[in-house]
Each structure stands twice: as structure tokens, then as C-alpha cells.
């Protein structure tokens, strides 16, 4: 069964955007063989309000988490504990990693295959 990954990226190639700065997340659909395609650029209100920190623990985090609730993994360059907590409530794993999307997805897929039993990390 397919699953979804949301990526914070500025150019569609490299995971380079901080979670709180992202105004959109690229949504990838990955099939059982690890093939993936971009299916959507999902718009969100950035949690850090464009650089000024004011909403970290607040409702914006939850709003973003809510809007990403169909994905299993969120990849971004950097994130904080509030983001992680908000996403974890929806069973979403938030991973900080700076690398090309084309390298990250196979690693996630391999991990998922190894730990099939629906573990939420």
C-alpha cells in the first residue's frame, strides 16, 4: 500500500527548509517498490510567522500537523521539539535531514521495509 512523505524544500530537489519556515510541503506518494511521485504542493501557514518566533507551541503547529495528517514522514532541514510533539500526536515521524530528496526516499523506504510492523518512531 502506498504511503506519503511530506518534504520541506525550496527547489523541489533538496530538503533544505526549516519546518517552521515552510509555507508549503511537497507531498510524495511512495508505492510498495519504493517508486515515488510528487502529487501535491500543500500550502500551510508557516509556524514561525516568517522568521519571527511567536507561535511555536501554539495552534499553528497543530494546524500544520492537522493538514499533514495523511502522511507518515515529514522531512525538513531543522525542527524543534514542539513541531515533533505536534506531529507525533498524529502518528507522523518528523526527521531532520539535509540531503537530496532522491537519496532520502530510498532510505526511508528501506527503513519501512525493515520495520514493517507499523512502528511509529
Amino acid at each position, binding site marked *: 500500500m502506498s504511503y506519503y512523505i511530506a518534504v520541506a524544500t525550496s527547489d523541489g530537489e533538496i530538503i533544505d527548509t526549516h519546518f517552521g519556515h515552510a509555507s508549503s510541503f511537497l507531498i510524495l506518494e511512495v508505492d510498495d517498490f519504493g517508486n515515488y511521485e510528487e502529487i501535491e504542493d500543500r500550502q500551510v501557514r508557516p509556524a514561525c510567522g516568517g522568521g519571527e518566533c511567536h507561535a511555536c507551541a501554539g495552534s499553528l503547529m497543530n494546524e500544520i500537523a492537522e493538514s499533514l495528517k495523511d502522511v507518515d514522514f515529514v522531512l525538513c532541514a531543522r525542527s524543534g521539539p514542539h513541531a515533533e510533539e505536534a506531529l507525533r500526536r498524529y502518528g507522523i*515521524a*518528523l*526527521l*531532520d*535531514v539535509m*540531503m537530496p530528496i532522491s537519496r*532520502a526516499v530510498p*532510505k*526511508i523506504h528501506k*527503513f519501512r521495509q525493515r520495520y514493517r510492523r507499523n512502528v511509529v*518512531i
Partner: protein
Amino acid sequence: MAECIEQSRVACALGGIYTALAIDGVLPVTHTGPGCLAQASDILGRVNGGQAPVPFEESVVPCTDFCNTDVVFGGGEHLRTVIEKSIEYYDAKLIIAVDGCTAEIVGDDIEEVAESFEGSRIPVISAKLPGFVGNNLFGHSQILKSIVNQYLEPTGEVNPLQVNVFGIVPFYDTFWQGTLERLEELLKAIGLEPNIIYGHGHGIENVKKIPSAGFNLVLSPWIDLDIAKLLEQKFKTPFLQFDNVPIGPTETTKFIRTLVEYAGLDQVKAESYIKKSEDRYYYYISRHQAFVYACKYIPKDFYFIGSAAAAVSVTRFMVNDVGSVPLRIYITDNVPKERQEDVRKSLYDVELEDKDYEVIFTEDGGLAADDLKKEHEDRSVVFGSNWDLLTARSIGSAFVPVCAPYGQTLIGSKNYFGYEGGVALFSDYYAEIATNPQVAFIG
């Protein structure tokens, strides 16, 4: 290993980093989850006589904070960065990259990462310390093996009088620091040149000297025998095992005579040292004689719960010098099956006619506590760790702490080594009997 254990008296394998931290100049870089270090310090560090490593105390030990991302993407690069930064910021002489369970499960290759630092300002080696394989004694052995295999170089010459000291596990043997200082004095007094790697006044220079020793001394019933054998294989250094850290005159005198015979030392000098020390020991004991007999109740029996090493030392002293009798001895540090017979032999090798006491190997300290609560001699004495204080109190026994976790107190340079150590344990023992209201002035 037991399926589940209560009242653990050992840390997980990661506790092996305390062996590294006991060597001045050695810095472990840990590739583990954020909580792993705290787990070890609860048994070996601050709750064990308020100890912390010097100069690198736990809170400055670099850690990769192994997290979700490392599990999915592999943490090797992350470790490399932390080592690079450690080389930049720390004034260390040797770095040991170690990993714990998570890194071992996902299969990060820490050996490869360490090897990639060949030629760097600070040498980097690696040791695998996954807690799911063993306890801190396994970790201790892994650290020493890494040093021997990856760091030591032959020195080319052998000094027949130099003796490397092994068998005492730093931190885990709560008295390690004081013991090593006294032991060093004793070895010098009988004409040897001790080479001790741990603790105050020692360090990486002593590590480098290991291959030039005339022989290795292993002071324990089984720990570090693997290291001695490895050194024998690698550098052809023979080893002498003495099965415990001697406490009191009987055992210390035997220890000295064993050494003199093995190393061909000056017998006259050694015997005069023995005479002087024994005289001094009995002088001090005589001073307390009247007090001891004024203790209205003098217990005959004792229970022991704790490490194999402390068990042998304490049992020998209590039986041979104090004249007390063990009732049950619980060994709680997961002695490997093939070594249990040796430990058992050591524990029965005492001057006693009826040796009808039991030796029980279990990692489950809770089992020992339950056993004692069910069946015990009234007003006996319990030797053990801080865990056993309450058990002793609940069965109306006196209690003398002798192993890890020693408790939230300051251990200072306290130790029970040698003749002097015999006096110290003798006085701690009777002081407890005389002042503990449950056993003291009732009889």
C-alpha cells in the same frame, strides 16, 4: 541473563566508558541515545559514593544524541562530525568512539568511522558497547580490548620488574581509586615497579608502557583474565592471577609471598615488610579489643550480596581474620557460566571446617532480597550495595556497604586494601554493630 531483574547492581555495557574515563586523557565519544549515559552513572557514578570521572566528567562526554533521523538515515556521518568537533575542542590524548544498542541494531559502522581518522591530531579508536549483549563488565572488557588491539604498539624492550595491574574495574569497584594508590605503594615497597593505568597520577603514558611489562598481575577471580591472555598472545607478557584484592593480614601476606615467589623478589626485604605491617595491624586491632567485647552482641554470621570480586575479598577477610561465617553469598554481576566454578572455588577457599554455605549466582538483586526476607538468621550482618540497606534493616541485620551502587555519600579515598584496609573494614564492621539499634544493645 535473567529474564527480568530488580535492583540492578550493574550498568549496561555502555558503563564500560567509565573504564575509559578512569584513564587520564582518554575521551569516549558516545554514539548513543541521549539517556544512555545517565543510566550508567546511576550505578557507577554519583550514586556510587558520589564519584565523577576526572578530568572529563559525564556531563562533558560528547554524544551524538542518536535519534529518529539516525535510525532511518544511519548515524555514521553524524558520529564523524561529533568526533571532528571533539578533536577540535577537547584536550584529549585518545578518543574512543563507542556505540550503544540503537547504533548496533541499525548497523552503523563505527569502526570504519574511527579508522577514517587515521593520522589525526588525537588518535581515534572504537569499541562496541551494546547493552543488549552484556553488562558494564562486558563493556569494561571491550574498552580494554580495543586499547590493546587498536592502540598499543610493542615497545621493543621488557622491564622484568614492571608489573601492569589489572582486575580492578574502576568505578564499579567503588574503592578502586584508594585501592590502586595503596596497592602501588605496596608493590613498590617489595621491589616491583607497578604500572597502573587508572586514576590519579596515571594515564595514557602508563597505557603506552603496558607492552614493556615483565608480567601482568590480575587481581580478581575472573575479570580481566581475557585481557591478560590477549596481552600474552600479543606481547608475550606472562601473567599472574591472584583471585582477589586482599583485605587484612592473612590474605595480604599470602599475596606478597605469591608475588615474591613468582617474580623472584628479595625475600628478606619482603618478610621484614610483612612483619612490620602485621605487627602494626595487630597493634590497631588490640586497641579495639575491649570495645569489641563490650559490644554486647557479636554476630557470627553474614550474608553477602554483590559483585564476585568484592565477595571473594570480603569473605576471605571475614572468615580468615575476623572469624565470621558466611550463610549465603549472592553474586549479582552475571559471571559467565564457564567462570562460575572458579568463583565458587575461590569463595570456598577459606579457613573453615564446615563450609555449608550456599553460593548463588543471580543478577536479580530482588531475588536475594526476597530470599533473605523469607529466611534469615536474626541479627546477622549483610554486606552489599546500597540496595541492601533496606533489606538489612527490614530483617533486623547490620549492614556494611562494600560494592556498587555504594550510595549517595562521598567515598573520598576510602578503601579496604591490605593490612590498613583490614583495620578499616574491621572498625567499620564493629562500628555498625555497636551503633545499629536493631542489633546492638539488645542481648
